[in-house]
């Protein structure tokens, strides 16, 4: 009974599974991008967001004048070839404001989303995996931040803060928007942590940090990416809203600030639609792009939907 050859039935399937395996693993390497591009929703989303990113990148090249240039002779002009998006009460070129504002809005959205996602990921997974007192504390924090309404809190914070620079906004947005994603990621980590591969990693001697970030987190990447996109557009909207209310950083150009000045100078009352329309359109397109991207990520990362598509 001793020296038995360890070859049995299941090994004989080798050539078959090797042939089948080389396909998907090669497709896996370019990875998430090709998956996203294959999905119509995320393709639209990537297109819109990509367009905005390109605009933001080349904005200094395509803006026609300094966005806050003061020129009363050219004030309140409707869109024309000279001023594509018209001009403001002070005669600043709105096209330049929108194009340069894209840079600030995108950086602000991405940075606060990054901060919130990192917080949500670390706290959510760590809480779920550790359990006990750590879970209690994180849960309490999450609940507190969930209960406090974000926008009123932000209004209070930003009206008290003296420095209203971009860094402050990023910190404020990032530190208030992490809670709902932390809740979702904690839930997902809870369902993963009792899977045997986590137990097996423990038996192998992996440390807690290694299990959390090396074994659990890679299984949650799609959900984390979704969290990032979600916080991204929420941050964009909240930021624009705060600026519209006059609580933003009024030394910089951004979509929200253009809207704010249009409101203060009662542009609509004087029949000027363009200072509202163009920054609003830019904001809407970016957010719609991000929403499509989110829907696409959901579809791509849900194996059931993916299989449906493949079988068609």
């Amino acid at each position: 009974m001793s020296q038995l050859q360890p070859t049995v039935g299941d090994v004989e399937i080798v050539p078959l599974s090797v042939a089948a395996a080389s396909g998907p693993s090669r497709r896996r390497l370019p990875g998430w991008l090709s998956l996203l591009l294959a999905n119509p929703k995320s393709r639209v989303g990537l297109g819109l967001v990509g367009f905005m990113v390109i605009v933001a990148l080349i904005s200094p090249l395509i803006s026609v004048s300094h966005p806050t240039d003061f020129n009363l002779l050219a004030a309140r002009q409707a869109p024309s070839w000279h001023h594509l998006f018209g001009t403001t009460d002070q005669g600043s070129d709105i096209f330049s404001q929108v194009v340069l504002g894209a840079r600030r809005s995108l950086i602000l959205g991405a940075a606060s989303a990054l901060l919130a996602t990192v917080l949500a990921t670390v706290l959510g997974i760590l809480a779920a995996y550790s359990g006990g007192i750590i879970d209690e504390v994180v849960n309490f924090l999450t609940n507190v931040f969930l209960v406090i309404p974000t926008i009123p809190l932000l209004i209070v914070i930003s009206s008290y803060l003296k420095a209203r620079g971009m860094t402050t906004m990023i910190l404020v947005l990032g530190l208030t928007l992490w809670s709902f994603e932390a809740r979702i990621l904690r839930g997902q980590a809870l369902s993963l942590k009792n899977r045997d591969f986590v137990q097996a990693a423990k038996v192998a001697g992996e440390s807690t940090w290694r299990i959390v970030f090396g074994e659990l987190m890679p299984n949650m990447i799609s959900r984390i990416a979704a969290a990032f996109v979600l916080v991204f557009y929420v941050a964009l909207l909240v930021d624009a809203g705060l600026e519209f209310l006059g609580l933003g950083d009024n030394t910089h150009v951004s979509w929200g600030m253009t809207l704010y000045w249009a409101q203060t100078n009662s542009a609509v009352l004087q029949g000027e639609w363009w200072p509202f329309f163009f920054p609003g359109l830019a904001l809407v397109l970016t957010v719609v792009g991000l929403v499509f991207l989110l829907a696409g990520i959901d579809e791509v990362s849900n194996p059931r939907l993916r299989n449906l598509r493949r079988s068609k």
Partner: protein
Amino acid sequence: MHAADDVTFVLRPGTITALVGESGSGKSTVARLLARLYQPTAGQVLFDGVDVAGARRRRDLLRYRSQVQMIFQDPFGSLNPVKTIRHHLARPLRIHGRVERGGVEARVQELLETVGLVPAEKYAAKFPHELSGGQRQRVAIARALAVEPAVLVADEPTSMLDVSIRVGILNLMLDLKERERLAFLYVTHDLASARYVADTVLVMYAGQIVEQGAAEQVLQRPLHPYTQLLLASVPDPAVTERAPITARKGLAAAAVDPPPGCRFVERCPLRIPVCSERTPELVEASPGQSARCHVTAPSPARREDLHVEHVQ
């Protein structure tokens, strides 16, 4: 809650000890206690004469884990879906520093060959979803072997596998027992496979060991009525008449605050009054075979009582 108590047994190098019992009898709890996935509330785990149940320092735990490894029941859950087979085998090697930095790859291939997964380099690059259940279980065994342990705890390693593949895994276990002088704890509810591989059999019921002894003896001439019923319930096409022993229609013993007396009393066909009063001890009724039963393996004191009763 008493998932398992008063469980004492010995694992010896080069032997396979089968732990059999129904679902909920505490076999997996015992396995996970040995693998240090659960912390025992009381009792000792002696390894080479040293109690390791209380070891909490990472260094002590790592030393223990390098000696005691575990194979899980579900090969679909015990491998991380986003990691390659190479990762699963290389991690334990790195954690425990078993090989030189450059030797990891060679050792990974050697391990894969040990469990019969050839060509090894092809398997190493694969992801778990590209393998069949039997192949995955072989990877799980290879991972457990990576640190060259002395003890291997196998928690129903074949129950999730196709019948045709089971014998391959069992033969691999026998082969490893001979070649590596491993001490196996083989947890199973499959008596036929226990008979096939095991040297010693432990029968658990409601958290207690009710019978233990050499595999042949226990499975040919069971002492405890539970073991007898267990064996009688195995369908045997050669036997046409009804089994000579049948269970009472009673409830299984409560694991939460079990009442005094034998835990099997509700279902036992052989019960006598004393059974619901006093918990029977594990008594060596014939050489190398002991059982926990007042009727078939009465303790010396109990034998006296019986004798007295007869005289009167």
